[in-house]
């Protein structure tokens, strides 16, 4: 894993007459877990979409190190994304899904990697023939994480990761995020849950109506009350 910074440079995104993002400038460092919070319609999912290269910004650019991620196809090798939907093939089993993605990302020693990854996300005991269609929501989320981590990306992106998980799953995810942060990965998550954000992040970004309303980093993490105050401050009308 390299130690490159992710830099958002004056990104704007318009959908017809709707301005989803306005002049967003941010910087993310490896070893940081950033939570992007904000009210509905603030542009959080759009920003994540742009960071993942799935959505093109109307103006502005995103740099990973020196490369512009939208211009360089190989930048995708450094990005892992877990969205609302698991992004796996329901007719294939967990192993088959991961084998496909291992091949797409040209991962060496794929079988060992896959076995290790399945163990790590807690799917090691699942029958190897069971299609993903038969998985529970929590199991699918774990498989999605395995898919996103398989190619050892520098950047991990999550869109509302704990929304479909039970309390056990939420705790498991928090542990995973902590582990990734310690491993030096750059993690960005979009979430509504301020307490969860406080629990896992050391960088908080508040978006409001497409603009950055607050951008604070605390290497040792936040207390839940701090995040709430930050959030309310940022959203208060001046």
């Amino acid at each position: 894993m390299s130690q490159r910074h992710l830099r958002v440079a004056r990104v704007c995104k318009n959908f017809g007459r709707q301005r989803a993002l306005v002049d967003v400038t941010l910087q993310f460092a490896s070893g940081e877990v950033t939570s992007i919070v904000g009210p509905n319609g603030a542009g959080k999912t759009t920003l994540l979409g742009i960071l993942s290269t799935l959505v093109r910004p109307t103006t502005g650019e995103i740099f990973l190190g020196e490369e512009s991620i939208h211009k360089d196809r190989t930048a995708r090798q450094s990005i892992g994304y877990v969205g609302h939907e698991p992004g796996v093939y329901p007719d294939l089993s967990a192993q088959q899904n991961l084998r496909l993605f291992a091949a797409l990302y040209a991962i060496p020693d794929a079988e060992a990697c896959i076995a290790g990854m399945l163990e790590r996300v807690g799917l090691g005991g699942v029958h190897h023939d069971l299609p993903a269609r038969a998985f529970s929501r929590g199991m699918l989320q774990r498989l999605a994480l395995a898919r996103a981590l398989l190619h050892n990306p520098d950047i991990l992106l999550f869109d509302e990761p704990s929304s479909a998980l039970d309390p056990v799953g939420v705790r498991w995810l928090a542990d995973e995020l902590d582990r990734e942060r310690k491993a030096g990965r750059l993690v960005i998550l979009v979430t509504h849950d301020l307490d969860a954000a406080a629990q896992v992040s050391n960088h908080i970004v508040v978006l409001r109506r497409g603009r950055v309303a607050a951008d604070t980093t605390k290497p040792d993490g936040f207390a839940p009350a701090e995040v709430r105050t930050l959030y309310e401050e940022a959203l208060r009308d001046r």
Partner: protein
Amino acid sequence: MANTAPTPTEPASQSPRLLIAAAISFLLIVLACHTIADAPREITMGLVQKIFYFHVPCAWLLLLSTFVCAGGSLAFLFGGSERGDRVALSAAELGVLFGLCVLVSGPLWAKAAWGVYWQWEARLTSSLLLWLMLVAYVLARRYGGASARRLAAALSLFAAIDVPLVYFSVRFFRSIHPSNTVVSTLGPGMRGAFWLSLLAFTVLWTTLFMARMAAENAHARLVDLELRLDQAEETRT
């Protein structure tokens, strides 16, 4: 990507050009009508043959619309040109309009000439298919969902590429029927009327195209102004 999309042309500057174009168009049409009326009657078909002065220019405009649409689509799809998208839409709609004229006038003529409304003749059939593709373009724009504009753009590119393919496949398919190379068999009086009619129709197309583009440009300008208004309000609060 350009920093800001270029502001669509001020509507005020378009009005004089549009009026001039409309005026020229009107004059040419009046002139063409006179010339067509004065043109000698064709021996075998009589008055009905004069449909030809409308039918052929409309077919030419159908073809023109297809290629202008494809050109705009190319600019939109690969250059991100919003203007290209507006050009494509305007051209496609005009193509549907003039194509309809072709498909109505053609069978009327065919009935008089061959006794049947439809004969799978190469050019008429090709026109039908081309018209269907432009109708498909308009449908795709309207009902194509999130990627409607890009879907329609791809469609128009395939349609443009299809023009020679459709024509040749239908022509070889119907090789038993004689092709009608009508223009070269025109008598001297008729030739003048024909070219004038063609010019009049082309200017009409151009006028309508400009009008349609003006409407689209005005709409784009409205969107742009709304965005700027939002931004101004934001910076004030």
